[in-house]
């Protein structure tokens, strides 16, 4: 029933054929669920390929991840067409923590705008080319340069920094 994963395998093979060693890892986790890890330099190319040629035009969400040494961003893309079952493709990109910069994908998928702002708020990843990276969900008077979901920030540190800003 759900064991037919030929479509999922097909998209993995397409990505591997087209981008070769830029695809670090690509696997079919289960039916309708594909995980792909790519090099951050080829993010735009891969997203463009998926959106324009494979119809992955909907970004369900963008999640951030703190891997202690690196940060990672996972784009959860969804295939969009009318009839068949949709595949959710999670595109994972790693960036260095001391220089967290990624190109924005809103030129390809405009719906990513608010998600990128959220990831910028909580993880401090700078999306180059994004029109407005001002705080979206953090409270007003939030100290700049404090990214609450990064592992190095402890609750007490954040609280003392908030108190400092108030004074």
């Amino acid at each position, binding site marked *: 029933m759900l064991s037919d994963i030929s479509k999922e395998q097909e998209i993995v093979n397409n990505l591997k054929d087209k981008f070769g060693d830029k695809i670090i890892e690509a696997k079919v986790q289960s039916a309708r669920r594909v995980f792909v890890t790519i090099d951050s330099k080829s993010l735009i190319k891969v997203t463009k390929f998926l959106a324009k040629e494979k119809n992955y035009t909907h970004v369900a969400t963008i999640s951030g991840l703190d891997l202690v040494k690196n940060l990672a961003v996972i784009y959860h893309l969804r295939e969009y067409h009318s009839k068949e079952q949709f595949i959710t493709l999670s595109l994972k990109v790693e960036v260095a923590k001391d220089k967290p910069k990624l190109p924005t994908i809103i030129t390809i998928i405009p719906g990513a705008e608010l998600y990128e702002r959220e990831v910028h708020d909580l993880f401090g990843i700078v999306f180059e080319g994004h029109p407005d990276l001002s705080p979206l969900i*953090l409270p007003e008077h939030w100290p700049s340069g404090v990214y609450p979901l990064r592992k190095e920030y402890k609750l007490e540190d954040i609280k003392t920094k908030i108190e400092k800003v108030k004074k």
Partner: protein
Amino acid sequence: MDIIKWARIKSPWVFHFNAGGCNGCDIEVLASLIPRYDIERFGMILRGSPRHADVMLLTGTVTRQIKDRLIRIYEQMAEPKFVMAIGSCAMSGGVFQNCYSVYEGADKVIPVDVYVPGCPPRPQAIIDGAVKLLQKLAAGK
């Protein structure tokens, strides 16, 4: 019994404010206002504006973003004013305690008169809290 106090105990008008909760407590607050529980037998009636109300029914976690607004709304209420903190979140921060953007309870921000525990509390518990507030007033706060 002096007449102002008598009138106050007979007509505690309430208004409802959600400071950033999940709407669970709000549903229970609404449920407690329906004719089935007949909260009007205590003279309670829901008002839309804080300026018309004596009691604030505060639900939800008080977030850092809402803090200034909550204080402003509280200051708009006419004296004497009372606050009921409804649900675990308004009491202590609930499951969001120790999160970077919430306060551990509404009493860190504004004075609270009655705490109603529960996640969410049942309408009976909210009405019990309201009656406790009236008793507190009758005893002469």
